[in-house]
């Protein structure tokens, strides 16, 4: 089986600051890969590079074997239709009601009429455990957990082949985090999608992944099946998953 997503030697710097320093990564079809790593290590930059929101300086990104690194315009839009994304802060459009947020990709991206798009939106909201009347609320009226659910409904609305999750549980209480983790697992299975998530929440990472990769110093320093993470034999991974201050990972603490 050829990989769904493949990154080969992807590099990105902002000014003089090197964020990605040759990332190599492979995501198999219908698998769920989680990238772990500390804050500011470039996890979001990695996802945004695949999405084409950030242009890498070097390297190649393949989606279904197609080189998408430099795609623009209509060709880029076509690849975009394979993707769904749950943003870290939700990134819901605050000028639109919830249902229109969920239906956005159907109406604007695919030119569907508003009425049938609304029906699909209500159906997707039900999938994430939200009642139909939530559809008429505006994003500012939602709690943190509801925001994530709506973001999830929007990400799956056009039945994407690949779904990206950026810190899906950050900022939620442990119970809500667990509910969101369950929803991610069930919706990804339901849609039959490939999932690529990033998080620093190890509970979430263990629950939603079948493979884990660790990003450190701009490179993937370890990857393997989720079950193998406790016996990685890698001191960086051990330090991270046990959350220890002592170890080879030095946090840049600014005075």
């Amino acid at each position: 089986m050829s990989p769904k997503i493949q990154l080969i030697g992807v590099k990105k710097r902002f000014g003089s600051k090197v964020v990605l320093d040759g990332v190599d990564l492979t995501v198999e079809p219908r698998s769920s890969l989680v990238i772990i790593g500390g804050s500011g290590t470039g996890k979001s930059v990695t996802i945004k590079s695949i999405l084409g929101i950030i242009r890498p300086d070097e390297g190649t990104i393949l989606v279904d074997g197609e080189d998408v690194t430099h795609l623009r315009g209509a060709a880029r839009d076509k690849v975009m239709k394979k993707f769904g994304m749950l943003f870290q802060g939700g990134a819901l459009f605050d000028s639109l009601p919830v249902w229109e947020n969920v239906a956005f990709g159907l109406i604007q991206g695919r030119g569907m009429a508003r009425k049938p798009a609304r029906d699909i939106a209500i159906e997707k909201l039900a999938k994430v455990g939200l009642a139909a009347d939530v559809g008429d609320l505006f994003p500012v009226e939602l709690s943190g957990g509801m925001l994530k659910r709506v973001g999830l409904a929007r990400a799956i609305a056009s039945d994407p082949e690949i779904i990206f999750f950026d810190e899906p549980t950050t900022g939620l209480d442990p119970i809500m985090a667990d509910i969101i983790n369950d929803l991610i697992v069930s919706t990804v299975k339901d849609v039959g999608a490939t999932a690529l998530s990033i998080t620093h929440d190890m509970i979430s990472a263990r629950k939603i992944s079948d493979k884990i990769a660790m990003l450190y110093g701009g490179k993937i320093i370890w990857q393997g099946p989720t079950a193998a993470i406790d016996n990685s034999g890698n001191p960086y991974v051990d330090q991270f998953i046990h959350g220890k201050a002592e170890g080879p990972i030095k946090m840049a603490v600014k005075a």
Partner: protein
Amino acid sequence: MNPFASIGRATMTLLAHIGRLSTFTGTALAAIVAPPIYGRLIGQQIMRIGYYSLPVVGLTAFFTGSALALQIFLGGNRFGTEAVVPQIVVLGITRELGPVIAGLMVAGRVAAAIAAEIGTMKVTEQIDALTTLATNPIKYLVVPRLIAAVLCLPLLVAIADSIGVFGGYVVATQSMGFSGGTYLKNTVDFATQEDIVSGLIKAGVFGFIIALMGCYNGFNSKGGAQGVGNATTAAVVSSSILILAANYLLTSLLFSK
């Protein structure tokens, strides 16, 4: 500190800005002609940019017209030209003050609002979200605002012209002893099509500047709330300066014959 180095750095920053603004303008213009046309969004923006600017533009035009009439009457006293108040009011309003006052007022209202809205969308990743939903942010956000502003400003200025002349008329008939009929007759007889059309052309250009600077600064805002605040200020200041500079250029182009 080497003075040449800092001059060089400032020049580089300025050139980088001009380069980025040119690219942005080019992308936006290309997006205007590319399908799809978001009619619904253009309609919304016409309401926000045009309709809701009517009170502000109307009030400022009224007071400007009245003050202009008063100045000409009182100042004209010195060399006996009180009689030409209607002619000078209509000339000053249609050619110059109508477009400039309306342009600056709308710049304050609309460029700020556009920059704040788009800037907030930028820092909360809503613009990235548009991209992931297969929607071009330039097409979806910038094009409707550009089209609406270029359509609305001439209409607003046409209204500002009428209200400005009316402001002069009120003062002239109430406190300068002009008869209403004479005032209006002198106004209509004197004003040429060129006076009015030149002002409307200026207005279209000002509309473009306002929407462009609002969008450009919004798209380039960085950081959180403070970044959005900076973008808003920059949008108002840069659009106001560009409006006044363009006004001079257009005046010299349109009337140099």
